[in-house]
């Protein structure tokens, strides 16, 4: 009787559009797999990649970003069974895919809803428009494994930010599976990066990193953990973000800057 063994996947990091092992050579056995245990140096590499990715991603037109994110929904849909295997199941995948579609549509509407033209008392056309803040660190929530991550990462990306995710220690595979969908979705290399490993080892390095502009601590909970990250974030005045609403353009706004331009008017 012939036996065929299934080909098992090696779960690695996702940095700058590639899937490298940790430079440290370390792994952890999590969810039945050897998952890369990223190091401080991997964190720094991911931030460098994100800074590059930020230029490409924020430089794309809003319409283009919307289309690319819609394509992410498509690639997630076709990989639904792989994604379902690393979260609570098909229903969670469906929720996550629908969420991506919802946010994708916001890309070219943000400026109209969140921006303004301002009636200043002088001969200037004065307007305020949203811009991405830059490189955003996201501490992934543990639950729900896939949709919880999507609910934090996608609002950060819609506005043009590049993200570096510290995957959940409990469910790291969802983050890597999501990276595989992203890798085939036309999201530029570096706009989305995933680090797996020990949160206590990685998150503080990101929180203190001088080239990270914002940190989402939703996944760190409200315990002393998040407080310690917040204190580190002050080192370069990072924006510290927490989820306020389930799904909303204001969740996107948390990762945006408002730029006001005074343009002269004259004959």
């Amino acid at each position, binding site marked *: 009787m012939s036996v065929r063994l299934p080909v098992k996947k090696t779960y690695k990091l996702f940095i700058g559009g590639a899937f490298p092992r940790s430079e440290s050579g370390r792994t952890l056995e999590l969810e039945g797999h050897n998952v890369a245990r990223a190091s401080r140096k991997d964190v720094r590499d991911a931030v460098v990649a994100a800074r590059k990715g930020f230029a490409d991603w924020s430089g794309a037109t809003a319409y283009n970003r919307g289309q690319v994110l819609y394509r992410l929904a498509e690639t997630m849909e076709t990989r639904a069974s792989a994604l379902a295997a690393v979260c609570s199941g098909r229903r969670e995948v469906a929720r996550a895919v629908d969420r991506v579609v919802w946010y994708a549509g916001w890309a070219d509407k943000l400026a109209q809803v969140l921006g303004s033209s*301002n009636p200043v008392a002088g001969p200037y056309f*004065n307007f*305020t428009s949203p811009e991405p803040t830059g490189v955003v660190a996201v501490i992934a929530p543990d639950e729900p494994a896939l949709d919880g991550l999507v609910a934090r990462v996608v609002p950060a990306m819609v506005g043009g930010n590049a993200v570096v995710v510290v995957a959940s220690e409990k469910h790291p595979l969802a983050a890597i599976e999501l990276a595989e969908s992203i890798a085939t979705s036309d999201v530029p290399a570096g706009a989305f990066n995933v680090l797996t490993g020990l949160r206590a080892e990685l998150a503080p390095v990101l929180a203190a990193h001088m080239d990270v502009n914002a940190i989402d601590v939703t996944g760190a909970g409200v315990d002393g953990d998040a407080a*310690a990250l917040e204190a580190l974030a002050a080192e*370069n005045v990072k924006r510290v973000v927490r989820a306020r609403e389930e799904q909303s353009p204001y969740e996107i706004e948390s990762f945006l800057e408002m*730029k006001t331009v005074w343009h*002269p008017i004259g004959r």
Partner: protein
Amino acid sequence: MGAVEKQRTQLPARDGWEYAPAPESREIVSFKDRYGLFIGGKEVTPRSRSWFTSVSPSTEEPLAEVAQAGAKDVALAVDAARGAFADWSSWKPSERAKVLFRIARVLQERSRELAVAESLDGGKPIKESRDVDLPLAAAHFFYYAGWADKLEYAFPNRRPRPLGVAAQIVPWNFPLLMLAWKIAPALACGNTVVLKPAETTPLTAMLFADVCRQAEVPPGVVNIVTGDGSTGAHLVRNHGIDKVAFTGSTEVGKAIQRELAGRGIPLTLELGGKAANIVFEDSALDQAVEGIVNGIYFNQGHVCCAGSRLLVQESIHDQLVRKLKRRMATLRVGDPLDKNTDVGAINSKAQLERIEELVASGTEEGAEIYQPPCRLPEKGWWFVPTVFTNVAQSHRIAREEIFGPVLSVLTFRTPDEAVEKANNTMYGLSAGVWTEKGSRILWMADRLRAGVVWGNTFNRFDPSSPFGGYKESGFGREGGRHGLEAYLRFE
């Protein structure tokens, strides 16, 4: 053209054009000998039993004694604000609006008095306090008054609610205007406030307490605690507050952010800057020179968004610097109360020393200094308008906020290089672009990592125009619809 200009630069511009003194009368202001704290609608003696003197930076004369609020005083102020919150936040919004409109009117009616007080206590030229600080402060209250009963139209699909007690700390460069930027939106949104003015400029805030009396602001809605940095620290550490808004140095801003870590208190920070003022070769040069001067010498350069780095396209560097130096020679430095004064006194001795230290570093690091001939008053704290040429990006004077009348000139060749140099800073508050090409203004504006970009102008402010920083210049916006968000939570 070059030759003609050269000849003109050699002429001391002042000769034959000396102005007669035109002092604004200070009779209109009478400071009390001593100001207590403004808590619960009353002036109270500080529990700390401690006082300090506010002096005029232009004459070093003592103006009044002011209370040094301690932890207990701050706690009483927060309690008063807490006590007033339930009632104030349940006022009909249209009536709350009227209180703000009244404040705006009283500020307009007393603007001469307040402008003179501001110049006396802070050292800024009367023409600035009269034409900029006061009109803008009144306009800010007028603008936010109108929002008070329209908040549900500001944020689609959200239900806005006030936060509670807002702790607000303001700096010494625009004492009353920054007070207005803080208090107007907070009150419009239904919050109550405890405001701490800067140590060196507390007096217009104490006069504002009297404005509150005239406008019949309910007791406890506005509380003012004076003191040094320790008073601010007590305020931020107090557990009765629901919001912190701070304008000041990046260093203190970081300390506040650290202090609030894990407390879940919304924070907005408006911090330092090192703005690039970028001049292209096709710009209207004389207009640009005015903008450069306004950008860095306005308010003695005590402006967080000051255009302290001049980026000049290489082809016009020599010509522009020549014109700039000639213009600098006409700046009148001296008595803040003289209506012809362009540059007033440095706000404090400590600030003067900081400026002197950084200017010394500029010379040591190899930049070339120019200061126009200038007679300074004997008493008080003064610094001659200064420009450095041959500045490298690595020089301290190109990286650190000087907060004084000191300009660093750097050059660029291409728009891309201008963008790269402009963004090469930890700050990101403002930037200026001078060119006759509208498309280039917008192309540059897209790429500059700064919260405010001025095209063919600089240092313009308006209550409807959101203001605030990128990067280490802080977060949150003041002014406009966006300015409301800092004082609301959403259900």
